[in-house]
C-alpha cells in the first residue's frame, strides 16, 4: 500500500527532498523512473512495476514531478515535439492534450533538436518543448492505465497538461467562476506585437502581464506597460536577448530582472513570446508591505490549504528569489480573515482539477480592496523551503496525507 513511483529527475532537490521525507516517516523509498530513461526508451512503468514485484490490484502511488533543470530531458522533449518525430511509444492519440499552437511556429526537426547543445539559461524552443511534454504525459497516462485498473496519480497527467498551460488554466478558472485577472484577448487574436498593441488601445488597457503559456516560475514573464500619454513603453522581464547580425537573436533566462525601454527591444521580445504562445492578462496592482508588494504561494494538498508563503518584492515579478523576500502571511500583516480568504480561494482553485491532489496556487490580493485573484496554478509548486504546516515540510505533509487519505 505504501509503494510509490516518482517520475522525475533522480538526484535533484525535489526527488531527494521527497525521499528524505519518506525516510523520516518510516516509508520505503519511492522508486524513481527517470524522465531521461523513459524518453530514451530505457525504462518504463512495466520495468519499474516488475521491480516492485506487485500485484495489479495494489497500485503504487504515482507522482509526476517537474522535468526541468535537466538539459538532456529538455532536448529529448523538444525532439518528441518535432513534427517529424518517430517514436514507437507515441501514437496520434498522444496529441490529445495539445490545445493551442497545434502547428508549432518555426519547428525544429528531430535531427536539429538532437543536435542542440547546452547553453546555460538559453530558452531553446518553449512551444515545441511543451508539445513534447504533452505527448509524454499522454503516453504515461495510457501506460499506467494498461498496468493498473485504477492508477493512483497524485496529479493526473491530463490535469498537469492543463495546469501547465496558462491559457487553458485561465479558461478553466474563469468558467468555474474563480477570480482571475481579465484576459486581454484570446491567444489567437494576439499573435504578435502589433495586434497586441491594437487590442490594448481598443480596450484601453495599458498595463499587462504577458506570460509564456508553458513557462514555470518567472520564466518567460513580462510585466509590460504603455504610457498612453507619452507613448513610452516599459517591459520588466526575466528574458534576456542577444542580437546577432547574421542569425536570429538568442533569448535566454536571466536571474536578475531586465528593464527594457527601447521599443525595438520590447517588440522583439514580445513577438518571440507571443509566437511561442502566451497568456496575456491585466496587471492588477498587488497589495503592499512597507515599500514592497507581495503575492502568496498557497499550497493545497488533498483539497486542504496548508503551507503558504508571501513573496515580498520591489519588482513586479515576485517569483525570483533575487530582490524578493519570503515571509509568513502574518509577517506581512494579513488578518485571519484575509488568510482564510486566500486559503479558500486556493482550495476552490484546486477543486477545478478534481483528479489532482497537490498544487501551489499563486494568489494576489489587490492593492486597496485586498480582493483575491488567482495568478497561476503550479502542479509542481510544492518545492518550498523553510515552510512548515503543523510541524511538517510540504513533502512530509503530502506523504502523510497520502497514507491517511482515501482521496489520494
Amino acid at each position, binding site marked *: 500500500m505504501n509503494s510509490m513511483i516518482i517520475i522525475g529527475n533522480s538526484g535533484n532537490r525535489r526527488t531527494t527532498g521527497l525521499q528524505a521525507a519518506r525516510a523520516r516517516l518510516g516509508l520505503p523509498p519511492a522508486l524513481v523512473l527517470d524522465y531521461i530513461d523513459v524518453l530514451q526508451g530505457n525504462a518504463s512503468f512495466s520495468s519499474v512495476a516488475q521491480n516492485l514485484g506487485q500485484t495489479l490490484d495494489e497500485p503504487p502511488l504515482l507522482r509526476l514531478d517537474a522535468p526541468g533543470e535537466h538539459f538532456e530531458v529538455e532536448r529529448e522533449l523538444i525532439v518528441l515535439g518535432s513534427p517529424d518525430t518517430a517514436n514507437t511509444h507515441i501514437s496520434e492519440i498522444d496529441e490529445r492534450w495539445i490545445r493551442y499552437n497545434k502547428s508549432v511556429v518555426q519547428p525544429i526537426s528531430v535531427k536539429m533538436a538532437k543536435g542542440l547543445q547546452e547553453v546555460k539559461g538559453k530558452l531553446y524552443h518553449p512551444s515545441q518543448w511543451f508539445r513534447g511534454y504533452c505527448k509524454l504525459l499522454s503516453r504515461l497516462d495510457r501506460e499506467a492505465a494498461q498496468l493498473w485498473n485504477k492508477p493512483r496519480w497524485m496529479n493526473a497527467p491530463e490535469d498537469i497538461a492543463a495546469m501547465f498551460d496558462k491559457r487553458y488554466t485561465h479558461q478553466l478558472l474563469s468558467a468555474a467562476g474563480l477570480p482571475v485577472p481579465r484576459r486581454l484577448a484570446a491567444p489567437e487574436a494576439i499573435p504578435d506585437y502589433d495586434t497586441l498593441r491594437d487590442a490594448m488601445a481598443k480596450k484601453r488597457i495599458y498595463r499587462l502581464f504577458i506570460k509564456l503559456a508553458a513557462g514555470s516560475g518567472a520564466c518567460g514573464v513580462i510585466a509590460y506597460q504603455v*504610457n498612453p*500619454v507619452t507613448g513610452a513603453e*516599459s517591459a520588466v522581464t526575466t528574458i534576456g536577448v542577444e542580437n546577432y547580425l547574421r542569425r536570429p537573436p538568442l533569448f535566454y533566462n536571466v536571474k536578475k530582472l531586465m528593464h527594457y525601454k527601447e521599443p525595438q527591444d520590447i517588440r522583439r521580445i514580445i513577438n518571440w513570446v507571443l509566437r511561442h504562445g502566451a497568456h496575456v492578462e491585466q496587471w492588477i*496592482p*498587488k497589495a503592499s508591505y512597507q*515599500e514592497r*508588494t507581495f503575492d502568496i504561494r498557497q499550497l493545497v494538498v488533498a483539497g486542504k490549504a496548508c503551507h503558504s508563503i508571501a513573496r515580498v518584492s520591489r519588482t513586479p515579478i515576485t517569483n525570483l528569489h533575487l530582490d524578493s523576500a519570503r515571509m509568513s502571511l502574518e509577517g506581512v500583516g494579513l488578518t485571519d480573515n484575509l488568510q482564510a480568504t486566500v486559503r479558500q480561494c486556493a482550495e476552490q482553485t484546486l477543486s477545478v482539477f478534481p483528479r489532482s491532489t497537490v498544487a501551489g496556487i499563486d494568489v494576489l490580493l*489587490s492593492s*486597496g480592496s485586498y480582493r483575491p485573484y488567482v495568478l497561476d496554478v503550479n502542479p509542481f509548486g510544492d518545492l518550498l523551503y523553510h515552510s512548515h504546516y503543523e510541524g511538517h515540510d510540504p513533502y512530509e505533509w503530502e506523504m502523510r496525507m497520502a497514507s491517511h487519505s482515501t482521496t489520494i
Partner: protein
Amino acid sequence: MSELKLSVDYDQYESGVKIVELIEELAGKDESLQLESLIIGDWGGAYENDSSEIVEALVRLKDRFPQLRSLFIGDMSYEECEVSWINQSNIGPILSAYPDLRSLTIKGSTDLSLVPAQHDKLEELTIICGGLGKDVITSISEGSFKNLKKLELYLGVEDYGFDATLADVLQLIEPGKFPLLTYLGLKDSQIQDEIAIAVANAPIVDQLHTLDLSMGTLTDTGAEALINSEKIMKLKKLDLNYHYMSDEMMNRWKQSGLNVDISDQQDSDEDEDYRYPSLTE
C-alpha cells in the same frame, strides 16, 4: 492624529469610481471636520489622468477640512503606477487654500508645478519623484516658506525630468532662505557627488540636525568632502543610505563617530555610466 487614505483601486477604477466623488463623499461627512491628515493614493489611471481634479476639489471643499494639517498627493506603489508616469498638476492652489497646513508630500513630477510657492506655516515639504524639474526647484527657491523645518527633494535623473543645474539646486540653500530648516534632503540624484561637495561646507549645514543625501550616486569623491567638513561632523544625523562608496570609505565613516547611515552599498566597481540613483525604476 486622525488620518485617512482615499484611493481608487483596480476594482473600483474598473467599475467607474472617481476619486473626486470619494473626496466629495468624505467632505459630506462630519468626519471631515476633524480630519488632520489626508492621503490621496492612486486616483485611477494616474498614468493618463492628472491630479488637477483633486486639487480643484480640495480647494473647492476647503471649508470642510478645517483641521487638515498634513496632505499627501500621490501615495502609490510602482504596482499602481511608475513614479515617473504619475501625472501631477499645479499644487500651488492647495497652499493658498489651506493656510494652516503643516506638511505636504507630493509623489510624481510629470507636469508638476507649485505656483504660488508661498506658505507661512508649512513645516514639511517632500517631493518624491524620478526627476524633479528646474521650474519646481526654482519655484521653491524663489518662493516663501518662512516656517519650513524639513525640505526633502528627490532630484532624480534627466530621463525622468531633472533638467536643473547644480547652481539651480544650490539656490535652495542660500543663507536665510529657510531660517528654521533643520532637515535638508537633496537626494536620489544623478549628481549626488557634486551636491555633496557643494553642501559640505555650506552655511546652511550649521542650522541642520539632519542632512539627507541618500539614494543617489554618491561615491568616495563626494564622501571625501563630507567627511573632511567640520560642519558635517556636528550634524545629529547624516543619511547616505544607498550609495557607491568603497569599503574603505565606509570604514572611515564607522570610525568617524558620526551618526551616519551607510547601509545599502551598491556595486562601486561598476562603470560610471551604470550608476543610477535608487528611485529611477
